[in-house]
């Protein structure tokens, strides 16, 4: 078996043909991941015991002639902001360095019930805050495609393991582009589902009205399989949606004739020319497949970054208040009173980016500024969402770049937070509106750096998004 190129259907077929057992696959995948990991630092830690137990359960089912599940034996990685019972979950933060959650996230439960084998926890930016994975307290991740470059962020490790071949698929989380941007930078598929499509129960909260869990994989079909398994109402998350989960694979017919695609002009004006040319060729392919392509406008786009960084920092400052040294692991040794203990613990524990966002969020929520910043941003958010609902009255899907540029060099943008934030321009709008969006590999630059094409559809129309992505992938 070549672990680095396996896909879910291949594993299903190989297990059924007894080419190898799930245990043999898990052992080989763990050995391969552990030997390759020092190159990228994409995994923070492994959970071999849990992986082998899950694989043994799959083998037992196969031996009894039972269905091992849609993900039977499939080795995956889980971003370290998603809790795993008994397995350290650090959020790439010193504050949670030794946190052992007493419960599993719903997404994790559902994947394991379907037979998935979790190899380990993927590195990321601290508490998912960043666009380059350089904010991890445990060292940055290197892009497996070009080791001197970032993998993107915040789910950099989750994208890197799939590109490196050290997992067949993975889970990430997306608040402002943290799945699609690293997927684009590493040349893999990454999906941000509709807000509420996948339960957030057990996803460590960053910005609750914007956080999503979503899959990474090497093919569109594999991401659709993971999403199908995870999606659907969960009583543990009041914002999870009761909408039925359709059969995504039934929608992937390869036929996209007559599908109406909108190209938002605001998403092409600051685009680097080489990335622009790659997206242009991808759009030509969609036209050849019979799609009708029209120019559209999403007029509020220019205000999205300001809007997003007010809302997400406000929510983050509130969500991160719980790390006070009382309940979660690390506590400052130097304190004579309770307030001093809170302040010292947080001052010593949070990294630079988390502190910056807590400060901004606290400022915009503070007395006298709430209306001017937070409430204003929520009104602008409504206009951004309206841009999309107006657009989807005319078109079936929107196609756009994921990032203005391909993967940049480690250290290149760390000195200037505003420049780093501006690089999220094409991805944050989808999160603000709560619509499904994904990155699908569209080609490489002359330097061999991957560029992803973004597809966005209306709420709960993941099927339409997968249909277009799959047709493109088959004809790329």
């Amino acid at each position, binding site marked *: 078996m070549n672990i680095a190129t396996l896909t879910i259907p291949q594993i299903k077929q190989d297990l059924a043909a007894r080419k190898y057992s799930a245990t043999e696959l898990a052992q080989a995948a763990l050995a391969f991941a552990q030997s390759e990991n020092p190159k990228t630092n994409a995994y923070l830690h492994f959970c071999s015991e849990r992986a082998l137990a899950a694989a043994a359960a799959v083998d037992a089912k196969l031996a009894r002639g039972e269905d091992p599940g849609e993900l039977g034996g499939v080795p995956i990685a889980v971003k370290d902001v998603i809790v795993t019972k008994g397995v350290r979950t650090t959020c790439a933060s010193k504050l949670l360095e030794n946190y*052992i959650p*007493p419960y599993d996230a719903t997404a994790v439960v559902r994947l394991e019930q379907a037979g998935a084998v979790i190899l380990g926890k993927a590195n990321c930016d601290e508490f998912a805050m960043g666009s380059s994975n350089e904010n991890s307290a445990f060292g940055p991740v290197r892009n497996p495609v070009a080791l001197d470059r970032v993998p993107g962020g915040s789910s950099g490790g989750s994208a890197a393991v799939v590109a490196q071949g050290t997992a067949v698929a993975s889970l990430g989380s997306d608040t402002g582009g943290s799945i699609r941007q690293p997927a684009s930078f590493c040349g893999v598929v990454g999906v941000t589902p509709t*807000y*509420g499509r996948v339960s957030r129960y057990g996803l460590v909260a960053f910005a609750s*009205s914007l956080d999503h869990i979503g899959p990474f994989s090497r093919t569109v079909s594999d991401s659709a399989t993971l999403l199908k398994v995870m999606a659907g109402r969960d009583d543990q998350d*009041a*914002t999870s*949606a009761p*909408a039925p989960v359709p059969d995504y694979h039934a929608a992937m017919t390869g036929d996209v004739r007559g599908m109406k695609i909108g190209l938002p002009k605001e998403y092409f004006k600051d685009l680097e020319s080489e990335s622009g040319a790659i997206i242009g060729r991808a759009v030509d392919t969609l036209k050849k497949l019979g799609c009708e392509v029209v120019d559209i406008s999403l007029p*509020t786009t220019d*205000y999205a970054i*300001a809007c997003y*960084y*007010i809302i997400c920092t406000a929510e983050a*400052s509130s969500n991160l*208040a719980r790390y*006070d*040294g*009382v*309940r*979660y*692991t*690390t*506590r400052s040794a130097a*304190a*004579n*009173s*309770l*307030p*001093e*203990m*809170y*302040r010292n613990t*947080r*001052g*010593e524990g*949070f990294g630079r980016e988390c*502190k*910056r966002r807590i*400060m*901004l*969020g*606290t*400022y915009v929520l*503070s007395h006298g500024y709430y209306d001017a910043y937070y*409430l*204003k941003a*929520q*009104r*602008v*958010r*409504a*206009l951004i*969402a309206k841009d999309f609902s107006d657009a989807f009255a005319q078109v079936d899907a929107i196609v756009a770049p994921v990032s203005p540029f391909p993967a940049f060099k480690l250290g290149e943008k760390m000195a200037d*937070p*505003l420049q780093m*934030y501006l690089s999220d321009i094409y991805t944050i709008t989808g999160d603000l*509106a709560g619509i499904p969006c994904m990155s699908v590999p569209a080609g490489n630059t002359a330097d061999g750096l991957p560029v992803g094409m973004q597809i966005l559809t209306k*709420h*709960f129309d993941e099927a339409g998004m997968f249909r277009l992505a799959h047709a493109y992938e088959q004809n790329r």
Partner: protein
Amino acid sequence: MKITPEQVRYVANLGNLRLNDDEIAALAKDMDELLVYMEKLNEIDTSGVEPMAQVLYEAEETATLREDVERPERKFDSATATANSALAAQGYFKVPKVIDRQ
């Protein structure tokens, strides 16, 4: 707008964050730059626009409610709940002195 080190200290106090002088200087500069950028939102007319706090979907008003019954499978005992604390004993979190009597 100009964010001063005093304002940074005030906000850090609200957010329960101890910062050193270097951090305060750096944050004053970063916050100033970012807040000036955010003033861009004043260019856009939002009169009559309802604030959007959450992404909503079609559902019954009671769709997120469940029966108020005990669910034993979801129960944590206090030992489990305090297991991740740096300092806990007999099912309680231990913290430094809260009230200081003279």
